[in-house]
């Protein structure tokens, strides 16, 4: 029925109409605006992130269509309208949709509140925004003793491998030459320019980060989820700075184990918390695998802070040894609320920080705090950089 309506008509214009794409253009702009809006709510995205080990992954964020605001009457929760069909006064025609207000009644189908979109964001982008938005200074990596050498492009030459011919530059040379002599051929061998490579020695940018997680009985699933989110963004942030980042996962209760990443977040332990055991394990691995002089070592510890009180001295000693070797040690305390007094573990870190070593602590009470925690650690860390650089 729809096939031949266009047959025989002067059809010169209809191809032209196909070129109209204003709808798509404005739709793309709409989506761009959504991205901006989402970007303004980074803490929420950050809190929703799933732990991901490779950098190419994305986070999915559900968003609603943007509304172009107009003056609207107050929604009193009541609606009215005219319907049509077999109904008499007193009939009940079902339940009002809780989301639909009076604006949705009748023929007015303009309310698009119901449509939800899933937008994907690259983790790298989010990290970049995070750094911009939180005004996080870039870290100053400690240069290691070892150096890496790398081939870099540098300069041009008249001779070189065919594969490194720089066509744009060669063309420029040709244009220059022909500007002087119009009759000369389009290209001569003299015009050709080749990119050159040189060997550059660079300080190594290596880092190792230890994620130490308290999996004792007092850590709930929610606590663990918060810790996981926090670790994820820390790792993403560090990965931004270091070409090679080794991540070591250690969990502890009264004992400590090293895990692979997939297992790490599934571990549930029981029993008490002895921080010194976990810290000792970290130190062992650090001494065994990473040379602190060649490698930037970071430690991030997440716990609810209920360390056994008789563990203060041994844990303090371990932490101090780590803090001296490591570039930075951070402690994220997962709390359910505000504590009246600083926890055991907080005291531990405060004591070491008081001794002038680079470490600090931050408490995470809910998902929105994760972004603040990330900000806290990275600003403090870079402040430590400056302090360290001054003398």
């Amino acid at each position, binding site marked *: *029925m*729809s*096939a*031949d*309506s*266009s*047959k*025989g*008509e002067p059809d010169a*214009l*209809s191809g032209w*109409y*196909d070129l*109209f794409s*204003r*709808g*798509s*253009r*404005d*739709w793309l*702009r*709409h*989506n761009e605006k959504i991205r901006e809006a989402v970007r303004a709510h980074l803490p929420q995205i950050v809190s929703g992130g799933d732990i991901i080990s490779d950098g190419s992954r994305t986070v999915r964020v559900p968003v609603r*269509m943007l509304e*172009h*605001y*107009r*003056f*609207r*009457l*107050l929604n*009193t*929760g*009541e*609606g*009215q*309208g*005219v*319907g*049509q*069909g*077999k*109904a*008499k*006064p*007193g*009939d*009940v*025609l*079902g*339940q*009002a949709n*809780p989301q639909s207000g009076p604006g949705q*009644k*009748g*023929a*007015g189908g*303009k309310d*698009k509140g119901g*449509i939800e979109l899933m937008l994907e964001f690259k983790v790298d982008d989010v990290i970049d925004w995070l750094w911009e938005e939180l005004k996080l200074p870039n870290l100053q990596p400690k240069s290691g003793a070892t150096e890496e050498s790398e081939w870099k492009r540098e300069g041009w030459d008249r001779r070189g491998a065919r594969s490194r011919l720089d066509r744009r530059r060669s063309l420029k040379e040709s244009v220059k030459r022909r500007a002087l002599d119009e009759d000369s051929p389009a290209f001569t061998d003299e015009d050709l320019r080749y990119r050159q490579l040189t060997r550059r020695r660079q300080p190594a940018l290596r880092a190792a980060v230890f994620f130490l997680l308290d999996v004792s009985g007092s850590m709930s699933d929610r606590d663990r989820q918060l810790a996981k989110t926090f670790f994820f963004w820390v790792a993403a942030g560090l990965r931004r700075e270091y070409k090679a980042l080794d991540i070591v996962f250690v969990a502890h209760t009264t004992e400590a184990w090293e895990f692979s990443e997939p297992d790490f977040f599934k571990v549930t332990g029981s029993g008490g918390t002895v921080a010194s055991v976990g810290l000792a394990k970290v130190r062992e691995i650090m001494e065994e695998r990473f040379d602190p002089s060649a490698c930037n070592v970071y430690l991030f510890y997440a716990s609810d802070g209920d360390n056994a009180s008789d563990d203060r001295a041994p844990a303090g000693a371990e932490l101090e040894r780590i803090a001296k070797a490591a570039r930075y040690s951070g402690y994220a305390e997962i709390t359910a609320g505000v504590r009246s007094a600083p926890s055991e573990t907080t005291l531990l870190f405060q004591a070491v920080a008081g001794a002038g070593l680079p470490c600090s602590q931050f408490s995470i009470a809910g998902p929105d705090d994760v972004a603040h925690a990330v900000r806290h650690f990275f600003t403090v860390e870079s402040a430590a950089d400056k302090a360290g650089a001054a003398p």
Partner: protein
Amino acid sequence: MKSDWRSHVPKLEELARKNGLDWSRVIFEAVPDSFMTEIAVYGLPVRMPHWSFGARYIYQLLQRHMGYSRLFEVVFPGDPGRAYLAQSNGLADNVLVTAHVLGHADFSKNNMLFRRCQDQGSTQIIEHAAGHARQIERDIEAHGFNAVEQVLDAALSLEQHVDLDQSLRREHYPEYMPDKAQPPDDAFRARFATLDQGQEVAPQMRKQRAPLPPHPERDLLWFIATYAPDMESWERDIFLAVRDESFYFYPVFATQIMNEGWASYWHARLLREADFIPEEVYLDAIKCHSDVVRPVASGEQVALSINPYHLGFTLWEDIVKKSGVEAARRVMREDDDCSFVRNYLTREIAEEMGLFRFQRQQNGPIKVVAADVDELHESLLLDKYNFGAPRVSVAEVKNDGTMILQHDTQLDGRGLDAERALRVLEYIKRVWRRPVILKTVDANAKSVEFSSENPGGASS
């Protein structure tokens, strides 16, 4: 066999003319469905770019994919008028649509609301709007995308806030108060003036500056474009361009039931009388007609909405049956939807159509309530007043440039949605460039004030 609908156009036109329809020339054009969708979204074939159209566009596409809505035609009034027909229409569809379009063209040439807006604006709205769009493209080049978008955010959100009783090209307000010192020109004064008084009686009155605005002003687009303290001239032009288009959209909005009903009445009638149409085409066309004017609910069904085509069509059939075509034409010239529904939707028709009024509470049941025919009218027309927008006027501009907006809560019966109001104030402030304050009431009928300076909330 004639498979081309265009061959039927002249014959249908002749038949329409015989039936007394009177229209300006209409140019028919078949266009791709994608283009139809865009017209439906933008309201005009070429219109200024804005992201809010993008959101509507996707919504429309979804609707189309789910098969909810199908567009057969869009007509633009003017001289000449333009009718865009969907390329996917079949022959029968297009025969019906041609007749339908003639009904619309007759309506838009003769209805007074349409005429007034066309006299004021332009009979070439399509070219006009395309001109605006082109100008805005140039503005984007000159001033950057974000600057232009910011102005469009504000202008389009106030799209409905125009005063149709004013002329499209309005004069500025008089700068000074009318001179009360000027004595009335009567015989007593004339005689008095001839008397020798020895001294000056009338004191020298100083001219007094008129307040701004001299009366509450509901033409917000015009007022801001004209009196914004720091607006660039290209920004004012964008406001006026949006206002121009609102003058075109208003009659379309305010006569929807009448206009669609009128076109449906005439396509049905012309089709009945068109003996030159092959029978199978006629049958298909009539099937299509009954789809268009079908009530939302049939048989034992109940629907919470009505089909405006069905309502309009039923009312026009009734009017023609009772008083004849000439009387119907007079109604078509003089009414808009409000008067049309109030005057011609009778108790009997409402019962026959099965119209009822319902109420719903949030999270509560939807209940059918008893309603006399007047209540039905008001219920039907509730969204039609004031271009479907709350009544907001400029009450005052203070010495520091602060603009006070006043919402007429008496007429609207309740206050404004706080969050949206604040967002709109933010839009306006970016072009007004001084604080903007809005006075309205809250849910408890207490007066509240929203301010662009305090985006957190209201103060009472």
